């Protein structure tokens, strides 16, 4: 990730970092953990191993609940999370898989108690990670070991994506 962001940063990295930081750390009714879970789930649907591991590590470090994070990624419908978050992750998964969602999908989320602003905030996370996943896969990022992942997670929690 650092290599991609650092390659000709004026073309892409500088601007992408601003988008990602706002999506992941900007003011939102979603917590940092919620948004890291969204990033990990979008990455899982895109089968982006680097991003799944990186954002799973951040989510685990932020919430201290590894089984919960694992449950979200392996069986969303049974995971011990709130219904609004579940509905949101479901929509992001569909958008990522099928490239589109319908007004009925949005109505389901609203009925589950998700506010329109929360939907917009989740779509911002979806935009950032659907972009980054594609580039990580295309440029074939190598997957770091667990020590490096933990160091990366610590950095992202302390400093965000700027």
């Amino acid at each position, binding site marked *: 990730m650092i290599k991609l962001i650092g*390659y*000709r940063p*004026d*073309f*892409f990295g500088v*601007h*992408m970092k*601003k*988008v990602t930081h*706002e*999506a992941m750390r*900007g*003011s*939102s*009714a979603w917590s940092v953990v919620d948004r890291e879970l969204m990033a990990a789930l979008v990455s899982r649907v*895109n*089968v*982006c191993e680097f991003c799944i591991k990186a954002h799973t590590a951040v989510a685990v470090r932020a919430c201290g609940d590894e089984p919960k994070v694992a449950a979200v990624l392996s069986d969303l419908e049974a995971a011990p999370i709130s219904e609004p978050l579940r509905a949101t992750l479901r*929509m992001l998964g569909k*958008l*990522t898989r099928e*490239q*589109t*969602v*319908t*007004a*009925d*999908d*949005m*109505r389901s989320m*609203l009925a589950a108690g998700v506010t*329109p*602003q929360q*939907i*917009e*905030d989740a*779509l*911002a996370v*979806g*935009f*950032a990670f*659907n*972009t980054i*996943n*594609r*580039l990580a*896969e*295309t*440029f074939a990022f190598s997957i770091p070991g667990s020590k490096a992942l933990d160091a990366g997670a610590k950095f992202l929690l302390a400093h965000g994506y700027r």
Partner: protein
Amino acid sequence: MTNIGQQRKALTERILDGAGTASPSERRAAFENTGLAESVRTLIQKVATQATAVSDHDVAMARASGLTEDQIFEIVVCAAVGQSTRQYDSARAALDSATSKE
């Protein structure tokens, strides 16, 4: 509330209209995944819809057509941002539709 509108606009304007080694029309075609030269069509299509399937051969095809690494980097970035933009716009339209009828 998160508002990535301004940052997203700056990103899109930079990659499509700012200085680059690929021409603005090549970058626009990659962003829209349409009207592409044969030599880059498979690469861009895969970046947009199946990035895990991008192969060295796809990149070699683009290089063989005379594109430099910098040009390939630019059109790949445009393809990724373009597809995410279509997803995002589709979902925002669905949300607008769902909230306007309430």
